[in-house]
């Protein structure tokens, strides 16, 4: 399967990345991916989402 690099992903979106930023972005993105992998193994009690951020729960109308 074709893998895009961080630089390619951003340039496809029309975003020019500074040469010295590439390793920082790659490292940061890899850290996030590691957390994501761990997170996806964890249990979710609720698969709903909160696109609306209503403090105290959705009971407030």
């Amino acid at each position, binding site marked *: 399967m074709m893998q895009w690099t961080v630089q390619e*992903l*951003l340039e496809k*979106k029309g975003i020019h990345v500074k040469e010295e930023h590439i390793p920082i972005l790659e490292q*940061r993105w890899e850290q*996030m991916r590691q957390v994501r992998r761990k*997170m996806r193994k964890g249990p979710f009690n609720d698969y709903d989402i909160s*696109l609306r951020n209503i403090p105290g729960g959705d009971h407030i109308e």
Partner: protein
Amino acid sequence: MSKELVTKSVEELAPLLKNREISSLELTQAVMDHAEKLDKEINAFIMMTRGRAEKAARVADEEIKAGYYRGMYHGIPMAVKDNLYFKGEVTTMGSKINQNFIPHYEATVIQKLRHAGVIFTGKLSMHEYAAGVTNNNPHCGPCHNPWNTKMVPGGSSGGSGAAVAADMTVASLGTDTAGSVRIPASACGIVGLKPTYGRVSKYGCFPLSWSLDHIGPMTKTVKDAAGLLEIMEGYDPLDSTSLNVPTTGNYIERLTGDIEGLVIGVNEDYFFHHIDKEVETFVRKALQMLEDRGAKVEVVSIPSLQYAEYAELVTIISEAATIHHRNLTKRADDYGDDVRLFFELGELPSAVDFLEAQQLRRQIKKDFEQAFEKVDVIIAPTLPILPPEIGANKTTLNGKEVDVLDEMIRLTGPSNLTGLPSLSIPCGVAKDNLPVGMQVIGPALREDLVLNVGYAYELTNPMEGKRPNLLTEVE
């Protein structure tokens, strides 16, 4: 007299103004003279608006003389963070891209403060577009912490934190997306309140991340914060996220300091894990002082907090990158390096990543709600580290190198994800003369409760009258 005046809180100044023992003009000039003098070292101001301020102060004096006293903030000079819109006045967001931006409307909070008689003295420095925690701004220069000018004041409302701490403004407003009111409040030894999400209208505030952004008071005392919230809160149909719930108001009246029987929750696994030893000592001492005043401390579990940093980061960078996408493709070189990287990172998560972060967020909210079935408030350090040196991206935490941004938002971010009210209150001065702050997190819409716990603690005089060295030198 003018030197004494600038050190006073709003609660001390209000009766003097009301009884016409001092004039608003005299106070405004004293505060602005002091601010001009100190700003060479602190760099808290992006601009001062002396002419407009003096004119408004004269009007306030006339109104008070005529018996039309509007309340606690009438005639009080205040500078605010430069991402709140003033109609017809340049509002920069601490950026190069918006350095000449003139809003054609006013932020709701600014309108409310203006109606309450506040005298606006200028716009305060901030981390560019509020997208950082150091206030090391490449366009207007770094802002310095008045307690130790080599160190950052925190951010993104660092100008507000530094200016209040250094008496360059009597009170201020900040905005908080991952801790940006509470972080500089902690770093600068002042009070900072992030209200419940939707309690205060965000209309006319340049967004960083819509679903996480809040506006909050930054003040010298808890009572000043309570007074400011009374003015700021309320439903605003112009802000789609504004909560249409009755305003509770009367926050000042409800500051009794009585916490007998209050149950304080402590979450050891997240909020007390990997904390600077000195910070931890101060916060545990504060907990003891609250117990001495009649509160009980209980351990609470909030398992999903382990994913809070991830959910916060994915949400904030994705929403911020959406806001800045066009400029990122056309004017990337006009952003500071750190902010540009932050927004570029936000282009990487997928829609699935973003929505999973919202699932986590819901779980974290539920876990907090369950915790608040057992306890009244949760107390934690505001920052796990002491404010780092200006220019540092890394710092050490108990001997281990850590990332400044990650650490500074680690303990404040959960209250943005959940929208719960959170107060940072100073609880001591650590090594290198750096203040330490403590967070009081409450259930949704219970600002009265977090303020009262903060007030009860403030009554124990935790700062023992300590002030930034810089001010002692000036005096």
